[in-house]
């Protein structure tokens, strides 16, 4: 297992947030974690990222216990994580401080290209749309060549059209780079569109209710029977009748 949660529990004071989470992600796997808001899924991701330590249990990556943030595994926040005082180039090159200028420039250009921001290298985040800022953050994360990416509702602040575009972008990039991805979302559709496996969590205190294999090859047809079946299975698991 690339990333292994072993019996992870977390409490904040008297509040129990996570209960006995055991979960593994394979190398190169795209794992989505869904659950109602407040179920501790973000906390779980923060523990894996090394930003929080669990009350009990442990997370290991490649067998090594996680104790602090590490540049081999990058956390992508909502677009707030981009540095507004740096240009697109400056942001993407931020983690490459130990490279010489030439190499760094090449690497930045490569990732500017990958996320489709050519022509915006010198722009500041305030001049970009929400979706573009999110691309900057993804590119900044990928540029340091991490082996794990943690994404915490990365598209939550985007409008629904941009969100759909960003999902297919992310899948394209993931196929090109083959990182292990842990993706937290409260959007069930999003999880079924993206993931190899979807981890469904219960309301607080968060436990794993079920892990669903999404056995549909990419590109996924969103009106196929299997897609709808799996989606409704997860809706049912969370306790939502799929009706408005």
């Amino acid at each position, binding site marked *: 297992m690339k990333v292994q949660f072993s019996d992870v529990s977390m409490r904040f004071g008297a509040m129990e947030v996570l209960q006995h989470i055991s979960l593994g992600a394979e190398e190169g796997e795209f794992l989505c974690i869904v659950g109602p808001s407040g179920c501790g899924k973000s906390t779980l991701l923060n523990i894996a*990222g090394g*930003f929080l330590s669990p009350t009990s249990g442990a997370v290991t990556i490649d067998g090594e216990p996680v104790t602090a*943030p*590490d*540049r081999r595994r*990058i*956390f992508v*926040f*909502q677009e*707030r*994580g981009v*540095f*507004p*005082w*740096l240009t697109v180039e400056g942001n993407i090159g*931020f*983690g490459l*401080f130990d490279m010489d200028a030439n190499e760094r420039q090449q690497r930045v250009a490569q990732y500017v290209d990958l996320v489709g921001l050519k022509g915006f290298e010198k722009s*500041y*985040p*305030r001049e970009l749309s929400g979706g573009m800022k999110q691309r900057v953050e993804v590119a900044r994360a990928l540029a*340091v060549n991490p082996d794990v990416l943690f994404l915490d509702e990365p598209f939550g602040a985007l409008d629904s059209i941009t969100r759909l575009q960003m999902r297919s972008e992310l899948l394209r990039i993931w196929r090109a780079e083959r990182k292990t991805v842990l993706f937290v979302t409260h959007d069930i559709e999003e999880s079924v569109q993206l993931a190899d496996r979807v981890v469904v969590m219960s309301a607080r205190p968060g436990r794993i209710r079920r892990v669903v294999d999404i056995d549909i090859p990419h590109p996924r047809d969103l009106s196929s029977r299997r897609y709808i079946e799996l989606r409704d299975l997860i809706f049912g698991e969370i306790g939502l009748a799929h009706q408005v």
Partner: protein
Amino acid sequence: MSRSRLLPLTGIAAALAAWQIAIMLRPSLIPGPIAVAAGIGELAVRGLLVKYVVASLFRVTWGYLAALVIAIPLGLMLGMVRIGEMAMNPILQILRPISPLAWIPIAILWFGVGDVSAIFLIFLASLLPLTVATMNAVHNIDPVQLAAARNFGIPLRARMRDVLIPAILPQLIVAMRIALGVAWLVVVAAEMIAVNSGLGFLIVDARNAGNRYDLVIAGMVLIGAIGVVLDLLMRRLERLDSVRWGYASE
């Protein structure tokens, strides 16, 4: 001429006209704008205009720069180290409401009558607001940005240079502008007691040496005008590309 230029000029012209009319209706020791303009001309001819302006600016520059050099690192440190802030904050809060002018006797005791005392008062006046503002600016940094910086494992010094400082810069520039305004306010008061040149000295001296109220008001007008120029210069900093994100109005 555009409206945005015309209206302020009209305002100034109306104020000057009202002033002149009031003086003509009811003559007093207070001179009108024309006499004050003549007074400024007289200062220029005697070579005092440039000399006094430079003397005042000289004191502000040193007092203010010394405050920047101490307040910004101190504020950064207090902002980052929670226990430092808890220990220092009460002292800062008690010192803050004390007018810098209350320090005049102590300044004279320590530094004698002269430039150093005046510079010390300006230094004190800018130091506290700058320190407190820097500290608060550090507290206001978005934790997500600090977490992101930490994730990339960049060394502490680079983290200061590339994250901490740029993150507080928009707020810091505002604080620097306000502190410069305070410094300029205080230089005039400081010069009234401690020195024999500068615009503050001009005002006291003109009154003492024969009730030259035209020169008194000439000094006041110059102080106001230079204060505006200093403020406009500081405002230009707010238009730098790397800080514009920090201001709401685009």
